[in-house]
């Protein structure tokens, strides 16, 4: 789209061919003896120790799961345990060179990675730093059980802390790394650079890209590693993440020192199975996963396969790849070959593989082999290695005893504090900027052409005689959103925005017009048409500490980022025990005139998911105020807009939309018109049709309607609505969503429950039909209109004298439609 890039037909139509460089496979072939020049004996023994720790940790869990007992310590763990026995060399090799500022993201099978990265961080942090980390995490709650019983060095204590914190988390104890709210598949510990592991296969495939984007955009040191399985290479979001990570613009369009690739390693922990599906030979076609890199960019992602059964081979790869990233030539793809002896989970009977195969891998076991090599190279003795194993078993035994003790490691006391998890769902913070530094902008805000243009607009829809200003002169809904966003761009240096057509075009609905001039590329850019990656990367970006406004254009595209919106965005604040903030404002526009796949209101889908705030302003004043509030918070907000509204002026707020900053609290409905006979509660753009209905009701039937604009869906303060119903005794809830299962239904049910004694008729929902959205010309028979509202009031709430219905709102019709599912 940028005009600077000329697509020359005579160039692109030329004949030619794509050539590929060879993709290295298991090229490392040094012996321990040779590596002694690069590693001290201590280093090599630590590599051995780290692998043994992981092996014993996983073995312990395996025994607890299958026998309920580890070395005489009995415990029943009903939760999941996806173990990585056999994969230790890959994990330790991956983590060994990483600094504390390097972040890893993982999968459901990431205990080994947590421990490897944790042990690596412990080796690199000073005793003071370690004490500070341990003392400050949840004010020392995780640390206390190990601290009180420790004698020895701080590093030994930190290892105990790591094992205990992870184990207590797996056992859902309040002393765990995430208060027991993450559990086995989501455990993580950010002070050691361990970012969320993800129970959704490939879930880290786009989130890690966002984390790398955060590092790059905010000039943070360190790289990001996405540990994802070989089977996740089939997942759409992983491909979308890769597509996002390899955008040409990083090298072609981003300016100055922002030019260059993302500091990201896609680390395929290739254990060769996706549950029971064999990726090589059965469920995938890449044969060697490193091949994938060749198709993604000219650098072929610097992809190679590394022997993940030799920790030194993996370490070697990481040393080489880090250099590439430091040269801003990322991202990199590594295919780290490994094998798990344990099943997918303890219930896995391994029916998909032969005993011989498992035995053959065990015969080449990385820990046994590496131990022999260390002895052979004179780095260690057998006794020393046996001693390490013995120490590790003791460490596991003592950690297990602590973690299962209900006095030392209690679960959250939900009986005493029943709202504990509820309090974790949102931070409800008010934060001007996520980081204190000067935002990078192209010119002072006052010089921005759009800002100058808005200064001349009429901020209220009507003149003093009540006559509407011309569209072109009217400050509109899209201007309200723009003002809130540009204001935040000049306040918060971490704020970035992206989505399809966000730059140059100014967004499909012209909300961002003028932003291109104000912001450098890295703060506002066009994404690939990949909603999964748009939202997924935003999650990773926010998780690391940045504020971000992803935009997916049409609401109908929510399905394309379903996992991100439903599983990732809402979950991480609570699953982290509130360690992580999620300042993401996801802009979603409800369409109109564009038919079945571009006109749906799916607010209910998002409002149904715990952990999301959902707003849907209908006026410029509310749009600006709610966007300000959304951007001031640190919680994920789904910000619904409507294409019926973008050019609407402010018709309600006297004095028009204020020029200065103001917030409208999320969750507060607004009475747009006072009345006494019937309440009409609307969601989104239906407000205007309700106003029209209110006029007709007043003029034709003498019925005074109170119109309330919900403005927010979740959270939602029912009190003003209940007060209104107390007055009127009657309520219609209307919105553009298809009626069945809509949020209108949720509201109707809640109002029935809370206002039962005040109700003169059941709350009636007037939503859209349960059909496909037809063509614009037929929309009147699909979306609610004033006439429907009046008919529904007449048929179901209070018969209006002299009214003749045109639409069938009878109970019989309702039953019939439900029977048919339409």
């Amino acid at each position, binding site marked *: 789209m940028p005009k600077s890039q000329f697509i020359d037909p005579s160039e692109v139509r030329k004949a030619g061919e794509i050539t590929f460089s060879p993709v290295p496979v298991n090229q490392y072939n040094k012996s321990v003896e040779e590596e002694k020049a690069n590693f001290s004996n201590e280093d090599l023994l630590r590599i051995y120790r780290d692998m043994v720790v992981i092996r014993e940790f996983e073995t312990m869990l395996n025994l607890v799961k299958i026998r309920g007992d580890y070395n005489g310590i009995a415990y029943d763990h009903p939760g999941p345990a996806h173990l990585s026995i056999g994969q230790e060399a890959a994990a330790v090799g991956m983590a060994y060179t990483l600094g504390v500022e390097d972040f890893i993201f993982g999968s459901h099978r990431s205990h080994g990675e947590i421990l490897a990265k944790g042990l690596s961080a412990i080796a690199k942090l000073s005793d003071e730093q370690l004490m500070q980390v341990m003392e400050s995490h949840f004010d020392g709650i995780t640390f206390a059980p190990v601290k009180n019983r420790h004698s020895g060095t701080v590093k030994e204590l930190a290892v105990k802390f790591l094992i205990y914190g992870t184990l207590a988390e797996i056992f859902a104890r309040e002393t765990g790394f995430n208060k027991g709210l993450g559990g086995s598949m989501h455990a993580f510990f950010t002070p050691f650079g361990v970012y969320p592991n993800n129970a959704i296969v490939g879930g880290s495939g786009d989130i890690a890209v966002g984390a790398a984007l955060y590092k790059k955009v905010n000039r943070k040191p360190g790289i990001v590693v996405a540990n994802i399985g070989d089977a996740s290479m089939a997942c759409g979001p992983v491909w979308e993440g890769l597509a996002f990570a390899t955008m040409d613009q990083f090298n072609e369009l981003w300016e100055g020192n922002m030019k260059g690739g993302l500091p990201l390693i896609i680390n395929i922990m290739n254990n060769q199975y996706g549950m029971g599906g064999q990726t090589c030979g059965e469920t995938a076609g890449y044969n060697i996963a490193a091949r994938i890199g060749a198709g993604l960019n000219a650098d072929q992602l610097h992809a190679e396969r590394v022997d993940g059964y030799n920790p030194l081979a993996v370490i070697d790869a990481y040393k080489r790849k880090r250099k590439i990233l430091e040269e801003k030539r990322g991202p990199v793809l590594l295919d780290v070959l490994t094998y798990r002896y344990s099943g997918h989970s303890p219930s896995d009977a391994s029916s998909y593989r032969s005993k011989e195969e498992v035995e053959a891998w065990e015969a080449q076991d990385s820990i046994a082999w590496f131990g022999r090599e260390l002895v052979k190279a004179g780095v260690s003795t057998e006794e020393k290695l046996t001693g390490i194993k013995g120490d590790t078993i003791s460490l596991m035994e003592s950690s297990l005893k602590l973690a299962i003790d209900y006095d030392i490691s209690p679960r959250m006391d939900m009986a005493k504090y029943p709202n504990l998890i509820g309090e974790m769902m949102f931070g409800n913070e008010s934060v001007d900027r996520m980081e204190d530094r000067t935002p990078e902008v192209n010119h002072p805000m006052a010089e921005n052409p759009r800002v100058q243009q808005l200064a001349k607009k009429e901020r209220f829809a009507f003149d003093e005689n009540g006559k509407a200003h011309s569209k072109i002169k009217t400050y509109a809904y899209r201007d309200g959103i723009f003002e809130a966003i540009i204001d935040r761009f000049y306040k918060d240096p971490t704020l970035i925005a992206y989505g399809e057509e966000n730059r140059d075009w100014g967004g499909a609905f012209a909300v961002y017009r003028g932003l291109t001039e104000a912001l450098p590329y890295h703060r506002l850019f066009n994404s690939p048409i990949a909603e999964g990656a748009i939202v997924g990367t935003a999650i990773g970006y926010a998780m690391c500490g940045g504020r971000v406004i992803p935009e997916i254009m049409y609401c109908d595209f929510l399905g394309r980022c379903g996992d991100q919106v439903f599983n990732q965005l809402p979950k991480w604040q609570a699953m982290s025990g509130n360690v992580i903030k999620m300042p993401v404002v996801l802009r979603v526009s409800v369409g109109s005139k564009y038919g079945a796949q571009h006109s749906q209101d799916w607010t209910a889908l998002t409002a149904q998911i715990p952990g999301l705030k959902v707003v849907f302003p209908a006026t410029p004043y509310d749009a600006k105020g709610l966007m300000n509030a959304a951007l001031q918070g640190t919680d994920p907000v789904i910000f619904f807009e409507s294409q019926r509204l973008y050019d609407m002026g402010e018709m309600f707020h006297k004095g028009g939309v204020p020029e200065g900053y103001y917030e409208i609290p999320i969750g507060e409905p607004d009475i747009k018109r006072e009345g006494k*006979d019937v309440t009409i509660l609307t969601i989104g753009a239906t407000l205007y049709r309700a106003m029209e209905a209110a006029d007709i009701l007043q003029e034709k039937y003498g019925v005074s309607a109170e119109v309330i604009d919900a403005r927010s869906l979740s959270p939602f303060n029912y009190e003003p609505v209940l007060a209104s119903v107390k007055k009127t005794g009657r309520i219609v809830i209307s919105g553009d969503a298809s009626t069945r299962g809509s949020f209108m239904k949720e509201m109707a049910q809640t109002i029935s429950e809370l206002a039962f004694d005040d109700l*003169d008729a059941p709350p009636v929902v007037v939503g859209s039909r349960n059909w496909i959205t037809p063509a614009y010309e037929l929309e009147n028979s699909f979306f609610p209109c004033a006439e429907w509202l009046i008919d529904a009031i007449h048929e179901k709430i209070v018969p209006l004298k002299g009214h003749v219905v045109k639409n069938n709102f009878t*109970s019989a019709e309702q039953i019939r439609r439900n029977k048919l599912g339409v």
Partner: protein
Amino acid sequence: MAIPVLMPRQGQSVETCILGEWLKKKGDVVKAGDILFSYETDKASFEEDAKADGILLDVFFAEGDEVPVLVNVAVIGAIGESVDEFRPGGQVAATAPETQDTVAETVAAPEVKKVAEPSGKVKISPRAKNTAEKMGVDYQILQGSGPDGRIIERDIEAAAQVMPKLTPLAQEKAKAESLKPGETASGLGGKTIAKDLISYNPVYGDDFEVKKLTNMRKLIAKAMLTSLQNSAQLTHHMSADARKIMALRKKFKKVLDAGQISQNITINDLVCFAVIKALKKYPQVNSHFIGDSMRWFKKVHLGLAVDTDRGLMVPVVKNADDLSLEGLSAQLQAIAGQCRKGNVSPELLAPEAASFTISNLGNYGVEMFTPVINIPQTAILGVCTIVPRPKDLGDGVYGFVPMMGLSLTYDHQALDGGEATLFLREIKEQIENLTAPFPFPQ
């Protein structure tokens, strides 16, 4: 046939009673005379018993409820009988259609329609039900105007609008005393109770103080009103030459002062003595008129109106015609004293106790009045002050003579004007010709 159990009206001023305790429960078998419930006014506790045998079909109020008097509290009847018609508010709503035209024609006020037969299953919105209870509207009999015939709030409001807003007692009182509902409505469902009624006058507004009547006053009021309402009264006036009676009085005074007699014989005593004599000649005046018959008394039971601090009292002296002047004087003095002290026997105060009454206002300077008959007596004599009037002394000589005014009110139902006049003349004669019953000591 089911019958309602009313909250009794316990006295004139009781508006509502607090239901104390149910001694029978809904569904209990009750016999006439069984105590159903206790209740209390602000002054006392009472018990109400069953007036019929049957099943206590329903109770409409709970213990502790404030219940307007004369309102149905419960229903006694046979199993299966409907109680709905007795539900408080029902009777009221049933009278609604007469006034439905006055309902303002707004969308929220449809016509009040009633169902022919309450089916027992009523479709009503929760809000309407609450409003009905608050306003005391019986929704069971209403026809809903909502979707599918649901009773909705506007139906209740419309029914309430055409429903009297006054309690039964208040309606009665307002009618009787030309009062209007005041600003406060302190009864159930915002109804105006009798206490809330005010007398508002365009001239003086409410610039007055309401004084509660004493029981005595109430009794007098009732007696007076009943008298005027139930008899055909008219009064004849005449005057008697008082020279002789005054001279007599003087003489009695003199002998009293001299200690020769002990009884102070007053003019009133002398008049009474004279009237008794007249009554003996006109027995038809010494009588009671009781509708289709009269009681002609053989003896004279003389009532004497006595002014006391607590109001007018009329004690009786039995068999007054048997008494000497001195004896009569003593007895009159005794009962008047008892009245003033308040220890007179109530028997002596009953209007039926006297056969004729004398009311003497002479001491107060009243020259003429129309006393009110103490029914069922047939007449009353008002004795007025003595004033000098010119009189023909004979031989064309006129002089001023003290004359005593006499006002006889009689019930024309019992006596004709002629009889009354003759009787009055007889009194005059008796007074003018009264002589001392004994020779005065010289």
